[in-house]
C-alpha cells in the first residue's frame, strides 16, 4: 500500500474520531485536547505528505506547520483561560 493511501486512511480515521466526539455534544476539556491534537496531526499529515513538505528542508519549511501550531495553541489558550 502506498504511503499516500496509508495517510488517507489515517486522516479518515481521525475525522471519524472527531465526529464521534462531536456526537457526544459534551463540553469536556479532555475531549477538546484530543480533538485539537488530532486536528494538528491531520494538518501535519496534509502539510508533510500531501503538500510534500517532509521532503524539503529550508527556513520556509516550517511556515505551514508553524501556522497550524499557532492556530491550535491559540484555540487551546482561549478555551482554557
Amino acid at each position: 500500500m502506498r504511503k499516500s493511501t496509508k495517510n488517507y486512511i489515517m486522516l479518515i480515521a481521525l475525522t471519524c474520531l472527531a465526529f464521534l466526539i462531536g456526537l457526544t455534544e459534551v463540553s469536556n476539556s479532555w475531549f477538546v485536547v484530543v480533538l485539537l491534537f488530532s486536528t494538528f496531526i491531520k494538518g501535519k499529515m496534509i502539510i508533510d505528505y500531501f503538500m510534500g513538505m517532509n521532503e524539503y528542508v529550508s527556513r520556509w519549511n516550517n511556515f505551514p506547520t508553524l501556522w497550524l501550531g499557532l492556530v491550535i495553541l491559540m484555540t487551546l489558550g482561549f478555551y482554557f483561560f
Partner: protein
Amino acid sequence: MSNQQQELQGDFGVWLVIYVELFTFGVIFTGYSVARYHNVEMFNESQLLLNKSAGFLNTILLITSSWLVVKAVENIKNIYNDFDIKKASNYLLLAIGSGVLFVVSKVAELLHVFGQGINLSSNTFFTFYILLALFHLMHVLLGMFILFVLYQNTKKGNYSQKEHVGLESGALYWHMVDLLWIVLFPLVYIMR
C-alpha cells in the same frame, strides 16, 4: 542530491498565495476563538443548530478529493506510458467530482440554515459561521476551476515526469483548501 534536499513542490507564486491565505484564515480563526471566549454559552447553543453530519461528510469529501489529487501527481511523476496519463486524468476527474459533492452539500447546509431564519446578524457565532463557510466555499470553487484546468492539461499530455510544476502548483492550492477545512471543521462544528 539527498532526498532531504529536494526542491519545494510547485512554483514560488502559489506558495505566496498559500502563505497569504493561511495568514488571512489564521486571523479569522483567532477572531472566532476570541469571540467564543467572550460568550461561550451562546456559541455552544448556536453550534447545536449546525448539522454535524454535513460537516463530517464535507470533511471526508475534501480529504478524499485531496488524496485523489495526490494520486494524480504520483502517476505523472512516475509516468511510464499513456495508461498512467489516463489514470492521472481519471483521478483528477474523481477529485473534481468530490469537490462538486462538497459544494452541493455545503450549499444545501447553508440553505437549511438560512431557512431557519438565521442570517449574518443573528448572533456572533452565525456571523463567523456564515462568513467562514462562504469564504471557504469561494476557495473551493476556485480550486475546482484549477483542478478542471489541470484535468484538461493532463488529458492533453501536457505534463511529463520532468515537467509538472503546473500540476504540482494547482495540487498545492487544493491541499491548502483541504488544510483550512480540517481546522475549520472541529473549531466550528465540534469543539464546545
